[in-house]
């Protein structure tokens, strides 16, 4: 008769019946009833209602019945805490039972009942059991301390159980020692700073003695605990290693791995020239190899760990390549791990064998495995230079199989091989090209395109090949699109005469028709590069690329050290530190290898130094290019709220990124629009000249063709410079904007004339600025209320504030503007005279002026000549005053008038000037002193403009 009969009673009123049976007088009936209750519990039925009745059965001398009742209690006590008290007395009594099995059972079960009220009663029985005469009871009590600590840590400390537990490390019975160690380790893990496992040579000795005598599991507890110890010197390290080494031959894989962990860690402390060091290295190989005959899951754990060990100490397994050869009946996770290790162990000595294996694997049935095998061949080629040729020919053989995914994988790795050995294996390109049509995976397509672009000059029909990909450009994935863009630009630079249309096509596809910012940016950059300086473009795009490194996916050294300390654990399986996947372990100190702790520090110091260096550098406010375009393109008209800090004059911001888009963006767009049919319609004019003039020889300068001059060369204005054309109608689908800046009654204004030179009505105007040096921003929306009819002009004055976001521009007074209407968004850039920014309260006190002048270092002084100015000093002073340049003092020395002047910019920067005017000499000399010398040039230009107008 089996227990399964207990599962069959499922009729109604069952609980009621069970209740009756539980209270039966007959022992046998009671036991049967309890079994039925447990059976119900097992299948997930709620039998908690029977709690009092089951507890009543607890007092029995039948051990089997008692165990069942205890089991019931463990499951339901938490939901019935008050009634659980009923069980306490029996527990306490059982802890004093003459039968040690019952004493141990009671103390074990009590610890599992996680009810506060019960834990109080647990203390006394536990104290007794910890000192029990029977080791079976003591070892159970040791674990119970850890259980109790988990429920109520304070109670355990107050009761002194931790000390008793520490004493058990010296117990005569090895099992008791092992469980005490396990319990202490467990408690220490949840209280990392408790210093509970106060390991010293004496305790270590006790542990090592117990190690030889306890069960396999006890050995693991002890080894894992030992691994946390740091020996005082290499001699102690060696003596521990000697005593741990025999564990390497244990049949249990977990014992072996824990022993390996201890040895790998303590080995760090041994001098490399020590004979024992070499002996130990040799001893580590066989047990690691033996792990590969364990069950597949254990093999998997072993392989993940071997992967770490091989990275840390490649010498251990360098001759053991064969054991990592894949068996056809290995589970896939074992196969993949073995492949990884094979590559790590591949060397010139064994490469032939490895390649032969890999080639076999490539004909296996499991697709993922085959792919990885093909990839492995590529990695071998990169790692072992002498084998590269053989690898390439193996890959070619595989391509001949025409198995689709094999071909694609092979092409991906051949690309990497080209990156490692450029210009060495181009002979295979022809074969690759034959398989162009079969490539349907993005990675393979991208790789193939890269190869065609890279070797375009050697592939006669490179343009045809690339063009064939271009047809479905928008259906390709991003990596293919990016690769195609780059490849075509490369092709163009290599064979400019035949491929102009192609490059034009891809540039417009990338910049106009794509929503992908990466693609668009790359497109713009290429376009700009090609249009400004084809020579530079060649240097950039066809630059010699750094070779790819030999070893891939190496684990970062500090992480590797930490993982070595966690051999055998989940961390070593995941290759992640425990803090990455264990909750509440963030504060826990990362484990490190002992010997390397010192060297680690020395590694740290340059890091700290460079970190300090970084912190000294100016806070970087350079937005990424993406931000910039985003800003320009994002034309919602919320008023700028950010009150940016004034530009830090000494911050030395980089202008590189700006340059790409500064003058270029609008011109690029303009030039580009010229060719688009949309404009043709809106404009009533034939498409502009670009595509036609594209036929001009490249040496003639693409910049001409792209009409670069547009936005950059705006003439420098005077106080109120005359309006100039900022945005030609050509570039803005018929919208022409000319404008100027003025400061009126302390308010900076942008004054514009908008002219509609298109055929259709323009409405919905809006304007936005990119970040700029002085935080200029529209103080309100652009007020153009009536629609702008064709051929109509409208004046608009836009008041500006200086509280917008700040970013230093080059030139300093450059302003990038986006204007939107119902047709499109247009971009242009213009420059404002810096005198717009001179504020009304810019007159400095004399004393302050003198002190400031002295205070500013002479390096910050710059001198300029203003020629052909025919004003006398008073007229000049008056004229300048109108623009908020204030004369503070005037001195005449030997017929030369010296005017001392001050002005203050909107962001609070003071500029001090000395203007020397000699009667009869039309050439003035201006000396400018400012704490932010980069404004001097602009101020000087303003002086000239102000004085001459």
């Amino acid at each position, binding site marked *: 008769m089996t227990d399964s009969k207990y599962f069959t009673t499922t009729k109604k009123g069952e609980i009621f019946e069970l209740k009756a049976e539980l209270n039966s007088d007959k022992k046998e009936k009671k036991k049967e009833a309890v079994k039925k209750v447990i059976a119900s519990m097992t299948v997930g039925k709620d039998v908690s209602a029977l709690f009092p009745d089951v507890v009543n059965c607890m007092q029995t001398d039948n051990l089997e019945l008692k165990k069942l009742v205890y089991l019931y209690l463990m499951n339901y006590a938490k939901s019935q805490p008050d009634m659980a008290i009923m069980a306490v007395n029996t527990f306490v009594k059982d802890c004093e039972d003459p*039968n040690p*099995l019952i004493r141990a059972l009671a103390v074990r079960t009590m610890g599992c009942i996680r009810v506060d009220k019960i834990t109080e009663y647990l203390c006394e029985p536990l104290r007794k059991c910890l000192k029990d005469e029977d080791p079976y009871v003591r070892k159970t009590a040791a674990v119970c301390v850890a259980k109790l600590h988990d429920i109520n840590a304070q109670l355990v400390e107050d009761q002194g159980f931790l000390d008793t537990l520490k004493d058990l490390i010296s117990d005569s019975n090895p099992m008791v020692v092992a*469980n005490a160690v396990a319990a202490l380790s467990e408690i220490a893990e949840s209280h990392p700073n408790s210093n509970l496992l106060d390991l010293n040579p004496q305790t270590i000795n006790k542990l090592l003695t117990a190690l030889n005598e306890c069960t396999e599991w006890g050995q693991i507890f002890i080894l894992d605990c030992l691994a946390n110890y740091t020996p005082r010197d290499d001699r102690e390290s060696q003596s521990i290693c000697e005593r741990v080494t025999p564990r390497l031959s244990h049949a249990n894989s977990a014992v072996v791995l824990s022993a390996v962990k201890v040895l790998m860690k303590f080995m760090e402390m041994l001098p490399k020239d020590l004979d024992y060091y070499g002996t130990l290295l040799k001893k580590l190989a066989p047990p690691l190899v033996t792990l590969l005959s364990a069950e597949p*899951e*254990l093999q998997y754990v072993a392989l993940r760990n071997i992967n770490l060990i091989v990275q840390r100490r490649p010498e251990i397994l360098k001759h053991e390549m064969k054991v990592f050869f894949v068996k056809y*009946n290995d589970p896939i*996770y074992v196969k993949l791990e073995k492949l990884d290790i094979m590559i790590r162990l591949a060397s010139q000595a064994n490469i032939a064998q490895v390649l032969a294996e890999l080639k076999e694997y490539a004909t296996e049935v499991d697709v993922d495995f085959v792919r990885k095998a093909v990839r492995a061949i590529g990695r071998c080629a990169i790692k072992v230079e002498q084998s590269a040729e053989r690898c390439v020919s193996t890959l070619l053989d595989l391509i001949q199989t025409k198995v689709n995914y094999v071909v694609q994988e092979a092409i991906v790795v051949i690309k990497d091989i080209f990156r490692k050995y450029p210009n060495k294996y181009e002979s295979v390109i022809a074969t690759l090209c034959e398989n162009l049509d079969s490539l349907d995976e993005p990675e393979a397509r991208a790789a193939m395109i890269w190869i065609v672009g890279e070797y375009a000059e050697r592939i006669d029909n490179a343009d045809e090949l690339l063009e064939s990909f271009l047809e479905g450009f928008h259906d390709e994935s991003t990596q293919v699109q990016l690769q195609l863009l780059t490849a075509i630009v490369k092709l163009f630079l290599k064979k400019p005469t035949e491929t102009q249309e192609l490059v034009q096509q891809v540039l417009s596809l990338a910049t106009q028709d794509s929503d992908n910012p990466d693609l668009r940016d790359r497109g713009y950059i290429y376009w700009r590069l090609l249009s400004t300086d084809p020579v530079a473009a060649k240097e950039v795009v066809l630059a010699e690329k750094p070779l790819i490194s030999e070893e891939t996916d190496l684990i970062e050294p500090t992480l590797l050290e930490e993982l070595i300390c966690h051999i055998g654990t989940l961390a070593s399986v995941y290759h992640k530190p*425990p803090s990455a996947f264990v909750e509440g372990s963030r504060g826990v100190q990362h484990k490190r290898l002992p010997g390397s702790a010192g060297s680690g520090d020395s590694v740290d110091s340059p890091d700290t130094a460079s970190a300090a260096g970084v912190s000294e550098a100016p806070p970087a406010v350079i937005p990424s290019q993406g931000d910039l375009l985003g800003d320009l393109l994002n034309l919602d008209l919320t008023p700028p709220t950010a009150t940016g800090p004034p530009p830090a004059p000494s911050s030395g911001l980089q202008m590189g990124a700006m340059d790409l888009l500064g003058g270029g963006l609008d011109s690029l767009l303009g030039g580009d629009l010229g060719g688009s049919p949309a404009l043709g319609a809106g404009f009533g004019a034939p498409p502009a000249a670009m595509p036609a003039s594209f036929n001009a020889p490249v040496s003639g300068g693409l910049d001409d063709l792209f009409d670069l001059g547009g936005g950059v060369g705006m003439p420098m204005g005077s106080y109120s410079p005359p309006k100039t054309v900022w945005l030609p109608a050509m570039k803005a689908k018929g919208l022409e904007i000319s404008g100027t800046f003025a400061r009126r009654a302390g308010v900076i204004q942008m004054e514009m004339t908008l002219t509609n030179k298109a055929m259709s009505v323009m409405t919905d105007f809006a304007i936005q600025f990119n970040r700029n040096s002085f935080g200029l921003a529209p103080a309100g929306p652009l007020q153009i209320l009536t629609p702008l009819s064709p051929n109509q002009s409208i004046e608009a004055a836009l008041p500006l504030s200086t509280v917008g976001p700040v970013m230093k521009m080059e030139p300093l007074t450059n302003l990038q503007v986006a204007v939107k209407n119902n047709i499109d968004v247009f971009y242009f850039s213009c420059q404002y005279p810096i005198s717009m920014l001179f504020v009304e309260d810019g007159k400095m006190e004399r004393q302050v002026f003198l002190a400031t002048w002295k205070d500013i270092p002479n390096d910050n002084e710059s001198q300029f000549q203003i020629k052909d100015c025919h004003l006398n000093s008073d007229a000049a002073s008056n004229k300048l005053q109108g623009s908020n340049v204030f004369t503070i003092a005037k001195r005449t020395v030997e017929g030369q008038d010296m005017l001392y002047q001050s002005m203050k910019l909107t962001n609070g920067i003071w500029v001090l000037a000395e203007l020397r005017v000699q009667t009869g000499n039309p050439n003035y000399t201006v000396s400018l002193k400012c704490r932010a010398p980069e404004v001097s040039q602009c101020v000087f230009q303003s002086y000239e403009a102000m004085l001459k107008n």
Partner: protein
Amino acid sequence: MSASAIFVLDLKGKVLICRNYKGDVDMAEIDHFLPLLMQHEEEGLLCPVLSHGSVHFLWIKHSNLYLVATTNKNSNASLVYSFLYKLVEVFTEYFKELEEESIQDNFVVVYELLDELMDFGFPQTTDSKILQEYITQEGAKLEVAKSKVPTTVTNAVSWRSEGIKYKKNEVFIDVIESINVLVKPLIWIESVIEKFSHSRVEIMVKAKGQFKKQSVANNVEVRVPVPSDADSPKFKTSTGSAKYVPEKNLVVWTIKSFPVRYMKIIEKSGYQALPWVRYITQSGDYQLRTNV
């Protein structure tokens, strides 16, 4: 340190029996196990460790059961797998076969064993010889046997009860070697497929033995997959006979005797026979793969 709880599940993921050792992982988490497993299997990423949020499942499969350990700590994974396999070993010793039925038939003992094998996630005594000294399936026997703890439970040499004496002191060692190989096809199959019109396909299959003529393979079956809508098959064979098996979409060509031989393993080293040591070489799996 190791497992928070141990579960035995059937193939559908239903919990047959479980034991919560530490209480730090919600027992309901096990419901995620099978869906997770299936998902990984579908993606071809099957792995002995699966994780769901902060819970990690370490599992093995035995006949129609999954044995799963849960944890939310950085557990000793090799210890957990060793323990799960030990569990299988112990249960098998107790119940002969470990499968769904034997778990149900013996749930009381299973609970008892789970209680004895592991405490608070720490594996304890797992030697079934010793366990059988104080945990038995026969309730009646218990009363006597269980009155004291067998000394071996806490002994240094756990696998050997005390007081065993032999007349002669002898040791026998079996060296068992098992060979699993994937061999090159011993029968080479070539096929030529010709399409004639919209409705007719002709498949010519050639089989070639790769070995000497005197060796023979019996009952060779060559299976030729055909489209599911194939009908009116016509065969012509030079040897053996072919028949259409529509339910499997196959044409099976059976050849009674074919000149091929099986792989023979010859121990070349000529090892020296030692007394008490026996070498046993088992033929493991052979798998033949052909390109068709």
